[in-house]
Each structure stands twice: as structure tokens, then as C-alpha cells.
């Protein structure tokens, strides 16, 4: 595993993603998904909305780093607001 060059922050990052996927899988089993039409004019399931959230969050973090370039953790607050918006309206 040494060649993978693990660090604590990246391990934490992947652990959170793995946990999120696990939670969403359990949710999908307990409360089966229903697709709905959102503001983007397309049908999305809970899993779709999670994917849009994760992908969008990556771009929000990059945009924050490129434009503001400081206090990166604040980008996570923007991501949280974005996630709430996606799960509510998309």
C-alpha cells in the first residue's frame, strides 16, 4: 500500500465518500427511490442528486481555490448550501 502514498486527509476524504455511498445504499433499500422532475427539466433519483452534488462540489472547491484562493474550508459551506438546493429542487 506504500505506493498509493496515503495521507490522513485523503483517507478521510475517501472514507466520507464511502460512508455517504453506504448510507445512500441503505436508504435505497429501506426507502426505495422514486424519480421526480426537478428544475433542470429532467427526472432524478436520490442517487442522481447525490452524484450531481458530489460533482458540483468538486467544481465549487476548484472555483473557490481559483478565484478566492484562501480559507478553503469555507467552500464546504457553499457546497452544503448547494447540496441542500440540489436535494430540494433538482
Amino acid at each position, binding site marked *: 500500500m506504500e505506493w498509493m*502514498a496515503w495521507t490522513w486527509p485523503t483517507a478521510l476524504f475517501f472514507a466520507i465518500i464511502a460512508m455517504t455511498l453506504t448510507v445512500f445504499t441503505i436508504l435505497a433499500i429501506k426507502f426505495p427511490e422514486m424519480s421526480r422532475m426537478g428544475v433542470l427539466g429532467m427526472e432524478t433519483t436520490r442517487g442522481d442528486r447525490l452524484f450531481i452534488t458530489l460533482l458540483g462540489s468538486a467544481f465549487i472547491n476548484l472555483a473557490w481555490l481559483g478565484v478566492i484562493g484562501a480559507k478553503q474550508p469555507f467552500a464546504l459551506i457553499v457546497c452544503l448550501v448547494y447540496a441542500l438546493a440540489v436535494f430540494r429542487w433538482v
Partner: protein
Amino acid sequence: MNKTVNQKAWFLVLPVIVLVAFSAVIPLMTVVNYSVQDTFGNNQFFWAGLEWFDIMLHSERMWNALGRQLFFSCIILLIEVPLGIFIALNMPKSGFWSSFCLVLMSLPLLIPWNVVGTIWQVFARVDIGLLGYTLSAIGIEYNYTQEAFSAWATIVAMDVWHWTSLVALLAFAGLKSIPDAYYQAAKIDQASRWAIFRYIELPKMMGVLMIAILLRFMDSFMIYTEPFVVTGGGPGNSTTMLSIDLVNQGFNLGPKAAFSIMYYLVILLISYVFYTVMTNMDKKEGK
């Protein structure tokens, strides 16, 4: 009758999971790990945080390469998609000549990328290449090693030669699936050739055309071998596409990894948009 619940079937998916893990997930995780560290080999790593992402996001070189890459993909799509449809519309629909055309069209698709690059490198040479020599002989100023326009024209022509067949074959498959009844109805209505194309053929081909556009966009967006073999990214940096720029980042794995992740995210985003459009179209058609 009650359905038997048996979750053992999940084990059948196991080989795929293992394969994807080793071919995609673990390498991707490793790239993420590299992107936040500094290393020149020997398995020695130093924490760098988001520094490489910051440097890459402010790198004029990377933005220029991205601009060139998008420009290249747009040109490719604008030429290959209409040309592919045009070829498919004019191909014989059945019989010996149909099979002959299909085999002929498939030939460029079977040639390995680096061989395509080498063929065009020789073909476009001004001293010995048929194309380069002919263009020079008729008085057209053409030299792909020294002039940016010639280099671009060469790699665009090469890609069109290599991949238009794919669009044509997919469009042809779409056309073949249209039942004769549609054409008969059009004939009764005395529809013009354009109306038949606009209201029958194009809508029926839309599904496969979206796949063709997606495949061509992804492939052209990740193009490396052909322009690298033909122009090496030159003259200057004029044909340095994103993947060539990525390889030219030096020996430090950190900036390369950060670059790769951003590259990957862009591809993922565009693929997702295409995928969503395609599935939505399928759903609308199904209704």
C-alpha cells in the same frame, strides 16, 4: 405466487467489482493521493496540500491547452457529424455494394492510433509525402512542422479521415432501423427530400447520433497519440492538446496528478450531461 428472495446473485457481480476496482478506482484514489503531495520518485512524498491545484488553476499554459482542446473537439464534431450523416444517407441500403461500403468504411477504424499518426506524418511531408508534396507543387504554402495553420489542418484532416466512419456507420444503423412505412407515408404526402430528412430520418437517427457525438467528443477531448506522432504538439505549442500538456508537466507526480483530476472532472461533467440528455430522449421516445 411468492417471489423467492435470493441475494446470492450479487456474487456474480463480484468479478466486475474487482476488475473496476483494480483498473479504475484504486488508480484514481492513488492519483488523488499524489495530487496533494510532492514527489520526484523513490516513494518519498511530502505534503503539499492544494498547492498543485492552485498552481494549475493559475497556469496560463493549461488554460491555453484547454482552449485548444475545446476548439479541436468543436471543429471535429462540426465536420464529422454532418459528413457522417451525409455519407450514411448516400450509402447503398442493401445488396453487395452496401456490404462493400460498410467494410470500406470500417477500415480506418481498425488502424491503431500511432500507425494513423505515422501514416499522416509521412503523407503530409513536403519532401516525400503525397499530400505535402502535391500541395507545395500547386503553390499552396503548406508545412505542418513550421506553420500552425498547416499543423491544425493536418491533424483535423487526420481525425476526420480516421473517425468519420464511426459516425457514418452509427447513422447508417439508425437509418436502417426506420420502417418502410414511414417512407411510404412521406411519398403519399409528396414530402420533399429535405422534409423526409428533417421529419423522419433525423428524429429516428437522434439516439445513435447522440452516442456518436458523445463518443467523438470524448475521444477527441482525450486525443494524444495522433497529434503527438504528427506534430509533437508543435510548431511551438500550437497543437499541444490537454493530454500532451499533461505529459509535458515534468517528472513531479504532484502537478500531473492535480492536472489529471481536473481533466477527469471536466470529462465526467460533459459525459454526465450527454448521458442525461440521451436517457431523457429515450424516455421521451418510450412515452
